[in-house]
């Protein structure tokens, strides 16, 4: 008897209904429907990190279960690693137990580990695409909410918790209810010094922190098409900040040349076959999405968060909004955010003194991010009283940046130049701000206390962060580069 999943597949193939790319990837990874009605979706690549994997390893060991596909699974040390040059397990003592448990669990289960001293160690979301572990049209899972970063190469990625991580280790599938689909069309050319980060922040501002809940988002349009792959990753990285289940950009020739020759990418005849398949990975004309949203990017200016969630965003030349204009349910949250951030309605953010600047995280730590920041910093110095850090997203990025002399630009300007890891994004490695500091950061969450107790975080692009570091106040990078600051 034909399996239900096969029947579904055949049904869709026989009908002429145009399909979204999400439909195509989902259907081609649909293994079966489980007894409780959930779809089993095969996970092509599973990447773990030391903050959550140890608990899952322990659970499997207790249940006497093994890892089904260690050959499709990779382990990273990223959340708890120290960034201090010459680091080892003892540099951040509170991470040591996690690093060791990750080593033990990975070895026991035959999973390749990129350890703290590996020349390719780094943030999982940076390393996986950089080494070619994730491929267009492939499914990917990480026990981390920013999994969809790799949507930039056209992969369908899901973040998950610890139990689901154990489930994937044991079965190589995720049991999911099919999400809805959403198209976000980004049209127009970005102005100088306006980046994918600014676009993403603007989208979250328009849709809200729950705006894409339950949806898989396809990002399309001329602005996306023009973006380098690293920028697409920044865009997809922030998808979770509006609650999206996943987000991706359909792969194009730019992706194919970007991934070619990376260590885990097929070569020879297999590459040719894969490439022929990848070129079919498009949303059909006339395919329907459950929701659509359009953003004109041509008029965007650099964006910055003023509040304590990533939807509280204004343009760098705009003023902090006034909660009085809002309905009561939003007003309370907004007044509380203003209080935490030490801001008044109607204020300009530009010009506000800062104590700390962080450039890094899975959002903005790839080589082009660091280059763009270095171009702003070159020939300038970090302002007096500002602690400024650059933490590359992977040890490979760090090496490439050093080969290009970027580390010198940053260090000579007075930046700390660190070893790769998640660092100040969530402060899980001890890199945190001091109470009350105002911190301009290229990360993804401006939640209260995330970067340290009472730290006031403003999310921005690497260029805006770099400009702020040298000016010592929240800065409009366009003015700095035009010599107007």
């Amino acid at each position, binding site marked *: 008897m034909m399996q239900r999943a096969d029947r579904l597949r055949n049904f869709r193939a026989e009908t002429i209904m145009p399909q979204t790319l999400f439909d195509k990837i989902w259907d081609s990874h649909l293994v079966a429907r489980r007894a409780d009605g959930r779809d*089993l979706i095969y996970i092509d690549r599973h990447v773990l990190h030391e903050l959550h994997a140890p608990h899952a390893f322990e659970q499997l060991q207790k249940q006497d279960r093994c890892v089904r596909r260690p050959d499709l699974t990779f382990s990273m040390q990223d959340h708890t690693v120290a960034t201090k040059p010459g680091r080892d397990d003892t540099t951040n003592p509170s991470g040591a137990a996690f690093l060791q448990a990750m080593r033990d669990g990975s070895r026991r289960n035959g999973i390749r580990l990129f350890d703290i001293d590996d020349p390719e160690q780094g943030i999982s979301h940076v390393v996986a695409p950089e080494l070619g572990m994730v491929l267009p049209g492939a499914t990917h899972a990480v*026990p981390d*909410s920013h999994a969809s970063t790799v949507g930039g190469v056209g992969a369908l990625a899901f973040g*998950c*918790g610890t139990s689901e991580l154990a*489930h994937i280790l*044991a*079965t190589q599938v995720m049991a999911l209810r099919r999400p809805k689909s959403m198209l976000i069309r980004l049209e127009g050319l970005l102005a100088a010094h306006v980046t994918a980060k600014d676009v993403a922040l603007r989208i979250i501002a328009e849709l809200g922190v729950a705006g894409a809940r339950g949806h898989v988002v396809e990002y399309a349009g001329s602005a996306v098409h023009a973006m380098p792959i690293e920028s697409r990753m920044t865009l997809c990285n922030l998808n979770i900040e509006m609650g999206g289940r996943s987000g991706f950009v359909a792969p194009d020739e730019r992706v194919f040349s970007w991934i070619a020759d990376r260590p885990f990418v097929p070569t020879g005849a297999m590459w040719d076959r894969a490439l022929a398949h990848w070129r079919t990975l498009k949303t059909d004309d006339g395919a329907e999405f459950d929701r659509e949203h359009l953003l004109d990017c041509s008029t965007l200016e650099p964006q910055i968060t003023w509040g304590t969630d990533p939807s509280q965003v204004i343009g760098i030349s705009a003023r902090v909004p006034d909660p009085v204009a809002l309905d009561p349910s939003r007003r*309370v949250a907004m007044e509380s955010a203003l209080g935490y951030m030490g801001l008044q309605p109607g204020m300009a953010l530009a010009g506000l003194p800062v104590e700390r600047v962080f450039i890094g995280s899975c959002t903005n730590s790839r080589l082009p991010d660091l280059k763009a920041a270095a171009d702003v910093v070159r020939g300038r110095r970090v302002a007096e009283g500002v602690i400024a850090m650059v933490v590359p997203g992977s040890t490979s990025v760090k090496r490439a940046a050093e080969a290009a002399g970027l580390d010198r630009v940053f260090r000579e300007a007075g930046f700390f130049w660190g070893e790769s890891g998640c660092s100040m994004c969530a402060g899980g490695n001890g890199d945190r701000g001091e109470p009350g500091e105002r911190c301009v950061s290229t990360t993804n969450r401006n939640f209260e206390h995330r970067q340290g107790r009472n730290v006031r975080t403003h999310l921005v692009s690497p260029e805006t962060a770099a400009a702020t570091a040298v000016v010592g106040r929240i800065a409009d990078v366009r003015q700095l580069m035009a010599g107007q600051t």
Partner: protein
Amino acid sequence: MQPFAPHTGVAVPLIADDINTDQIAPVQSMRSLKPDYKALLFMRARRREDSSENPDFVLNQSQFREPGILVTGHNFGAGSSREAAVWAMLANNIRVIVAKSFADIYRENCLQNGLLPIVLEPSAAAAFAQRVISVNGAAPFTVDLRTQRISGPGGADISFDMPAADRMRLLEGLDDIGLSLQLADEIASWERRMATEQPWLQTAPDRRL
């Protein structure tokens, strides 16, 4: 996983939208593989800056010190996927959360741990929140997943929806891995088929080794 039995407990009103997992289970400066999950729950909100107890925070108020049910707003559990934000609820005997909506990953984490995530449509949720605020912990509520009803002081029973699949999994306390492994043959056959159709997905060798 423990099957979900009718749960009776004090309902705590924490009425706000977008409460995130950084708030529910904050990152601690000294991390441990086995933290005190009971103490972790809303740890920052519970303490003032001098680390004394914050009497204004709802879970510190005497009538809510032994909670059983949390009542909240939209998009509960946004942000990080950390499952500690569910384990911290269970460590405090909170086995039911009633919300206007949940963040996707948080809801999945609830189901994995036998924590019942109830969604009421906005007006019913607002009415229930008002009722819970008026009752103020004076008497407990009972949540029965079998009958899909919430009962308790201050009004009529409230019925709630739960997808049949999730309901069955919670009621029977089904082991999620076991449930999927009933289909191990289908997984193996998918792998065999894909090894032919898209072989680059079924193998991930490092070409340099």
